């Protein structure tokens, strides 16, 4: 252990003196209460203004659809005073400090305030357009393809399937483009003619890999075989539409949702960043303790609150 300079040793001994500690705490408490009593809600005077009485009465009207009578007003004022006293006393006793409900509620109120502020000014067209330009890929419409396909079932053809595919491809390539291909190949409960469909629609029926391959085809001729979840296919792509970026008017609500939610996250983060500048935070973590907390809990955890399921 390294030796400590003398003046630091003295200082340490001095602050360990109980009397010094006591005086220091007393002084801090004095400052705290002096400050709190100035803030109003913690003083011992309660003033119920006409404005507050009107607000109480308005709430009554909202529920009972008639104004309160004199006795009811008196009851509401008494109740308000009780609530006010109880709130102040509980706060003085520090009952709010360890209360998880109150802490979370306060945090929520603060974050909601940011959120309300956020929603109050709807994004401008320029803002939306900029967002759309920046996130073009997210909003891009999928590529589409229309095609005809002839299926070859490996379970039926086994070793001849590759040769069969070759022969059939030659036959198809030589045939009329408009010929009915339905009787060719093996039966499959999927369309032999797919109208113009998006990539995910094709994938939903034939699988992702097949959809990717079909989108690579050069339209206007028979190609393949292409493998799907079910076997081999000879495919004639008749039309392809590249994925394009829709205009803002077409997808305005989608973009607006995204802009608002991004803005909300940004502003809440900004608020905390700003607050962090004013706070000095020290985390005194013990390395072993952290490890213990993060490992999974032992099995057979005690049952506290059973959860509802419907």
């Amino acid at each position, binding site marked *: 252990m390294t030796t400590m300079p003398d003046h630091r040793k003295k200082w340490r001994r001095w602050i360990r003196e109980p009397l010094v500690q006591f005086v220091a705490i007393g002084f801090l408490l004095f400052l705290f209460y002096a400050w709190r009593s100035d803030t109003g809600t913690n003083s011992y005077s309660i003033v119920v203004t006409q404005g507050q009485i009107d607000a109480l009465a308005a*709430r009554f009207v*909202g*529920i009972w659809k008639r104004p309160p009578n004199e006795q009811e007003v008196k009851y509401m004022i008494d109740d308000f005073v009780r609530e006010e006293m109880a709130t102040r006393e509980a706060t003085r006793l520090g009952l709010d400090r360890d209360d*998880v*409900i109150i802490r*979370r*509620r306060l945090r*929520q109120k603060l974050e909601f305030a940011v959120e309300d502020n956020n929603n109050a000014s709807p994004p401008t067209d320029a803002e939306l357009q900029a967002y759309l330009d920046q996130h073009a890929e997210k909003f891009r419409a999928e590529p589409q393809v229309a095609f005809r396909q002839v299926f070859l*079932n490996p*379970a039926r053809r086994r070793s001849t399937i590759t040769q069969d595919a070759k022969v059939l491809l030659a036959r198809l390539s030589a045939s009329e483009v408009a010929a*009915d291909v*339905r*009787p060719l190949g*093996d*039966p*499959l*409960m*999927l*369309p*032999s003619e797919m109208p113009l469909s998006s990539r*995910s629609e094709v*994938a*939903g*029926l*034939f*699988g*992702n890999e*097949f959809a990717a391959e079909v989108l690579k085809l050069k339209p206007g001729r028979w190609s393949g075989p292409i493998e*799907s*979840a*079910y*076997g081999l296919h000879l495919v004639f792509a008749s039309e392809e539409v590249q994925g394009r970026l829709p205009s803002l008017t077409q997808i305005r*609500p989608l973009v607006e*949702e995204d802009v608002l939610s991004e803005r909300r996250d940004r502003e809440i983060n900004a608020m905390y960043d700003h607050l962090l500048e004013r706070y000095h935070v020290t985390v005194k973590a013990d390395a072993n303790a952290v490890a213990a907390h993060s490992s*999974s*809990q032992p*099995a057979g*955890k005690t*049952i*506290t*609150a*059973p*959860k*509802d*399921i*419907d």
Partner: protein
Amino acid sequence: MKRMVNCPLTLLLAVVLVAIGGCSKSEQAPSTSVQAPSTPSPATRAADEDIKCEALGDFANCAVQKSTLPQYSPYVEQNFPNRVYWGDTHNHTSFSFDAGFGNPLGPEVAYRFARGEEVTSSQGVRAKLSRSLDFLVVSDHAEFIGLPDLLRANDPELLKNATAARWAKMLHAGGEEGTKAAIEAVLAIFKRNEVFKDPKVTRSIWEKVTSIATQYNDPGHFTAFNGFEWTSAPGPGNNLHRVVIFRDGAQRANQVLPFSAFDSENPEDLWKYLAGYEQKTGGQVLAIPHNGNLSNGMMFALADLSGNPLTRQYAENRARWEPLAEVTQTKGDSETHPHLSPDDEFANFERWDFGNMMNPVVPKQPDMLQYEYARSALKLGLKLEKQLGANPYKFGMIGSTDTHTSLSTVDEDNFYGKMPTSEPSPERWKEVFLLNADKTPAAAAWQVQAAGLVAVWARENTRDALFDSMKRKEVYASTGPRITVRVFAGWDFNAGDLDRPDFAAQGYKRGVPMGGTLAKSPTSAAPTILIRALRDPEGANLDRVQIIKGWLDGKDELHERIFDVAVSDGRKIGSEGRCKKSVGSTVDIPNATYTNAIGAPLLSSSWKDPDFNPQERAFYYIRVIQIPTPRWTAYDQKRFGIKMPDYVPMTVTERVYTSPVWYSPAQ
């Protein structure tokens, strides 16, 4: 709307006993509502002029009527359903009293997620589907609808109510406090204690629900249905819940308010409400019961809620308003139970058979099972049809999630749980939902099933087309994978029809699809059932295709039998119609992987009933079994680097159940 029924537990027990004892053998005139394959159903309303051929399911006749013009293209007459649309009819968001206490995500997020967008879950985890859904029903509980959001906003009127104020406080605390508030709300409903009611508030929430559905309904691409859940649980705690789905847009749906269990917990009153809606608005609506497995013998009972034996009127009303049943979802599978189907090696599947939904649960008695599970109910329906002249349990089968996270997830490798607290985490599997009386867990989160989906055969992705398919039961249930299965039953099919390129056109012309009814055969010969199945294009191979037959014999006894009709890997089907050889498994549990080295991507079959008796009422439905794959628990174990106890299953045999085809001997 008034409170109609107030029936304590003892009375209910008596009701069930009377019902069981009172299952008389009286012979009444059998059904007259049988339909021949090509005649329009008499149940459809003749006055409705804009009703389409699709709505009748009578595609062959439609084609004939149009065929007076010169023809060339083979496609102009193809107005029958040509593809499967996948969806979830059962999604709860922050507007539901129980989801909302821990889940701040509203219907907007549910729709955005379902149509394939990335969202952030209630627990702050990024979430995205591998494939979008084609449609979604946001089915928030009618009871206290929107309450959590009002509490969250500290609605001043609402907070005048002491209970509401307390819940608001718990809600704002979040986490376990929020869940406790949710439980209180559930129990309040079970005890029919409507702590808060204000039609103005309900109206404003309902109009918000319908306006969000309007916003996200995108005909041709994504369908957003108007709907809600009616949360009846008499007993208390015996699940009789129904999801209500409207065919119509906001203009009609806004003419009513959601019907809640506070209005009545009797399904017959719900049907009156549905009839009232149709009369008032000219729209259409249906209801789907779910979780028979948690009804403690009440979902498909032989008596009504007051304990009276079922009547013909009851049977007709139920068949009219409840054409479907949700038989697989997060809270377990309700197709059948090993106790009911001892010869069915696939019956012991995702079982939730401890009792009802009270906490602590009221334990299940074995006698209750027959009135809870779909296969048994379909059988009971045959007997009731003979007694009453109408079949109350003539339902098609669907799956849906019943998620309370706003996120409809069914993939084992992408499962976001049932409640906000069961979203992905290393601890989620051991969370306890319900307790037994002795405080031991009755239902824990590892039992939650990553399921299910509805598959709808339709021509287009619109409210009208999808609703009409649901109404005529041309739909099926999946526990998750997007297996395509098509079924036609008819009298003159043969094996060659399976390979015809116009398979579907022939199917509709000469037979009935799933959900249909075959009238008496012209020759007394057995019907032939054609089945084609495709595996999920992004999923696992298929093990086998099965036909489940149920029938009522001449002595009024009910039977069921399973036939394997197509199996993979060259296995043989024995003379008794079964393949006892298992397909095996490629699942690597520690790595949560599998391969398609076993099973088949395509299976098909042409099957003729070997035991057909033209005098006996029967139904046939198809079950397609997938090869074993890793269960979500295996993915959790791998991804979180944890080890779950041996009692937690690590593999799953996913499957689909089609709506049945019924056979009714005509008179």
